[in-house]
């Protein structure tokens, strides 16, 4: 379950695809934010100790948010703003939002 409440936000909503499921997020959100709001918990597994990891800083410093965006691997999801139809692939299941 996402740590953030997805509440009705004003503004333009964009539809993106996270791990095969369509998700709507406000324009201005990053791809990493979209993954989190889709309910994904761990977005990657550390290659060093196989621990589950997820975005931590959301500003390009920690590199925990590495994900594949529109086919390009190893992108910092927090540094890329969503575009309509963006395909975001990372680890983890998209959960139904309550």
């Amino acid at each position, binding site marked *: 379950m996402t740590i953030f409440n997805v509440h009705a*936000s*004003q*503004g333009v909503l964009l539809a993106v695809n996270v791990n095969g499921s369509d998700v709507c*997020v*406000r324009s201005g959100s990053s791809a990493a934010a979209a993954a989190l709001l889709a309910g994904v918990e761990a977005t990657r597994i550390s290659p060093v100790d196989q621990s*589950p990891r997820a*975005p931590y*800083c*959301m500003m390009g*410093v920690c590199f925990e948010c590495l994900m594949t965006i529109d086919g390009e691997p190893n992108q910092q999801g927090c540094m890329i703003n969503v575009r309509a139809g963006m395909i975001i692939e990372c680890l983890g299941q998209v959960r139904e939002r309550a």
Partner: protein
Amino acid sequence: MTSCDLLIVGAGPAGMSAAIAASGFGIRVKVIDDQGSPGGQIYRNIEENHRRGVAASVGVDYAQGISLVQQFRACGATYQAESSVWQVNPNGDVYLTTRGSSQKVSSQFVLFATGSMERPAVVPGWTLPGVMTVGAAQIMQKTAGVFPGEKVWIAGCGPLAIYYAANLAAQGHRIAGFLDTAVPRNRYAAMRHWRGAITGADYLLKGLSYLARIELSSIRRIGSVTGLEILGDSRVKRIRWLSHGVWHEEHADGVLLHEGVVPHTQLAQATGCAHEWNEAQTCYRPVSTPMGQTSLDRVLVAGDCSAIGGARAAALQGRIAAAEVATKMGIFSTDQRDHSIRTAVKHLKRELSVRPLLDSLYAPRDEVRHPEGPQIICRCEAVTADSVRDAVRAGCRTVDAVKSQLRCGMGPCQGRVCGIPVACLVARERNVEPDEVGPYRVRPPLKPISLQDLASLAATP
């Protein structure tokens, strides 16, 4: 290849302010921003929020930032967004990539305005999914318009954590609680900076009003927290805290950590600027003059990436650095420069006067300053604090020696996150000052770049 007189890295208050002033002096300015629109982190996504009329809900100070952004857009500087600088040479050559296409820009002078980052809160379990920084939560609010859920905790201390919690309270959001790790004993040390309390009274009063707002809200603030542990397997499940000698444990859906902010010096380090330890702020800083001149003649710094001073101080420092560049270019004499920045210098002195008090009050507790134990200190390479300590005991004398041995600082973040706690830990083990053991030697490229990014450099005329 393109050229300019002044290339500014960063479009936060320092970068924007420098660009506005420098353009006004007739200097050809290019601003490189790794984000999609100006504002840095503090004014992130402000143009969109302003358009939608929701900027004030983030905060009054935030909403006021739109005027600086508008002045920046109108000032005539070239603004290049979504661009990542990966190398700067001391002669002013700058290499950057914009959406897969790389270029080299030759600039007479370079100004780093790369801002600040959060101090890592190295507590057990801090790498679990569901643990983020308060800054990250603010970014989620500014960009995605979302807020934390009812079982999410804030754990940490400092103006940003207080500001964020107060904002949640003002908007009626409930969270599980605010575990305040400010060290009560620090108040006594902070008292010797009482002069700053007078000149910075308005800032402090604002802070007190935020604290009052938190106290009057439903947010449970628990003070004197001296220990934190985050528990979970695939994600955060529970949080433990130590207060007045007793451990408590409760359910947690998420944890927002915050232990202050520190200068983001990665670019200045990679370029070769000399750095020194700043004990007052428990961080490294680029050696620089009050005008922002670094140890490299063509390189200047302004804003939080030099020393933490906040957004208003950053804007003033940007203005001052621009005047210094104008002087170096022969546009101003030193007298003309001093006259031009007289008011800015006066205001900057006032803005910075409250800092020693804040730095002292919110100096990180020992557990955060030099972590000990089996918890991970380097997230990228999963290196524990204990193994860093053992490496020093086995003979490693500097952070770079520890890095060679354990790989901490060699992961994707290139030591941005672990640099300060590793340095403090090594210094403490050796019983020396952090100046003697660090910072990490940082080498370009500043961010991982692909061979394609490099190849596109050759293709660009």
